[in-house]
């Protein structure tokens, strides 16, 4: 199958029912995307498929074939972190960091739909991601800061 990940097209010989997560991690060695619950509850495996946050653990690789997949590794540009990555780092929006790639990807998806979200919109926009360390307060701060930064840049 042909799988386009972070703008790069890969021709892969894999079982068609393999999960997208398994193919990303084991075939393409993109290990930033994490395995958490394996059943679509925790959000650690979130990637963008055609710009929409989706759980790669319950999405077959075939379902993503021919579409644009973006993982955490695909966000930086020319060695510069994506503004959302930068904001998460600046606000220390994590403890153990396992959920962070998923949260950042979901935030990118949220901000593309809602560039200036309220606290409530951030909470509902990130409702598919769980942080077991409980860094939510800092995560929300980071999202707000990333949104404000993006708006500042636009002006």
């Amino acid at each position: 199958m042909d799988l386009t990940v972070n703008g790069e097209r890969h021709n892969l010989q894999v079982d068609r029912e393999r999960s997208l997560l398994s193919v990303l991690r084991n075939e393409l060695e993109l290990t930033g995307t994490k395995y958490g619950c394996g059943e679509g509850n925790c959000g650690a495996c979130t990637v963008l498929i055609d710009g929409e946050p989706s759980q790669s653990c319950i999405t077959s690789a075939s379902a993503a074939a021919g579409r644009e997949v973006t993982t955490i590794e695909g966000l930086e540009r020319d060695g510069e972190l994506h503004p959302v990555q930068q904001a998460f780092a600046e606000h220390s929006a994590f403890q153990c960091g396992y959920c962070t790639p998923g949260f950042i990807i979901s935030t990118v998806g949220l901000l593309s739909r809602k560039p200036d979200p309220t606290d409530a919109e951030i909470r509902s926009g990130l409702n598919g991601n769980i942080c077991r360390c409980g860094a939510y307060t800092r995560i929300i701060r980071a999202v707000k800061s990333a949104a404000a930064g993006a708006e500042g840049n636009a002006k």
Partner: protein
Amino acid sequence: MPSFDYAAPTSLAEAVKLMGSSGTVRAFAGGTDLIDQLKTNRRNADLVIDLKRIPELQKLEMGSDGLHIGAARSCSDVHHDATVNRLYGGLADATGLVGSVQIQNRAAVGGNVCNAAPSGDTTPNLLTHEAVAVITGPSGTRKIELADFFVGPGQTVLQSGEILQELILPKPPESSASAYLRFIPRNEMDIAVAGVSSFIHVDPATKTVRKARIALASVAPTPVRARGAESVLEGKVITEALIASAGDAAVESATPITDVRGSAEYRRELVRVLTRRTLSICLERIGISL
């Protein structure tokens, strides 16, 4: 996960042909229920068919007979659609509550219907809008009322080889609205303890209820209409007291079980309260104050 074959047809005809393959064949739209069920051995399959690439199943458009929602169209698309938000408010409510943002991006309204969980969030509202299910199979296409679609938990009238193609929701009249509310202990990634959708059409001058439709989730083996509550409302002038009576009557249509999510008694109480609240939201949406 047990191994299975996988096909992603790009036409309805091809999909119907594949549905006739030997062994256990299961179709899915987003796969958010099915893949998990396969992983945990709650369902099995020799062949799994991904319906997302079939154009007919991606429709979302208003026709002369109402709104056509292709069975594989995602909850997110339905949730953000301007026509849905204007005319089918309860469906916008429900599609924004299913699972999480990620689930809504993958999961389809039609898939939620075919999964036939008694707790499915989108079904009660589809019932209140008197949705028609368009089913395609080896012997052609048939249409049935969605109310007749469910047989039991996880069971529908779909025969071997048949696919839910689309749902058609008749265009609601002016001065009508629908709403959906559910109760869960947390706000996301949980299953409704009880859910209620109401649809009401009120004469703006006399405040007389011309038509009422109420449907319940998670309180019976299948989604159910609360017909008693509907007849309490119809033909009467809407008042707070009438809304309260409708809530009481809706409880009569609930036959809940006691399980880990809540007791039967608690669920009956939820039906009473959610029926009242959804009716009040409908009136607010229509612009009628009591």
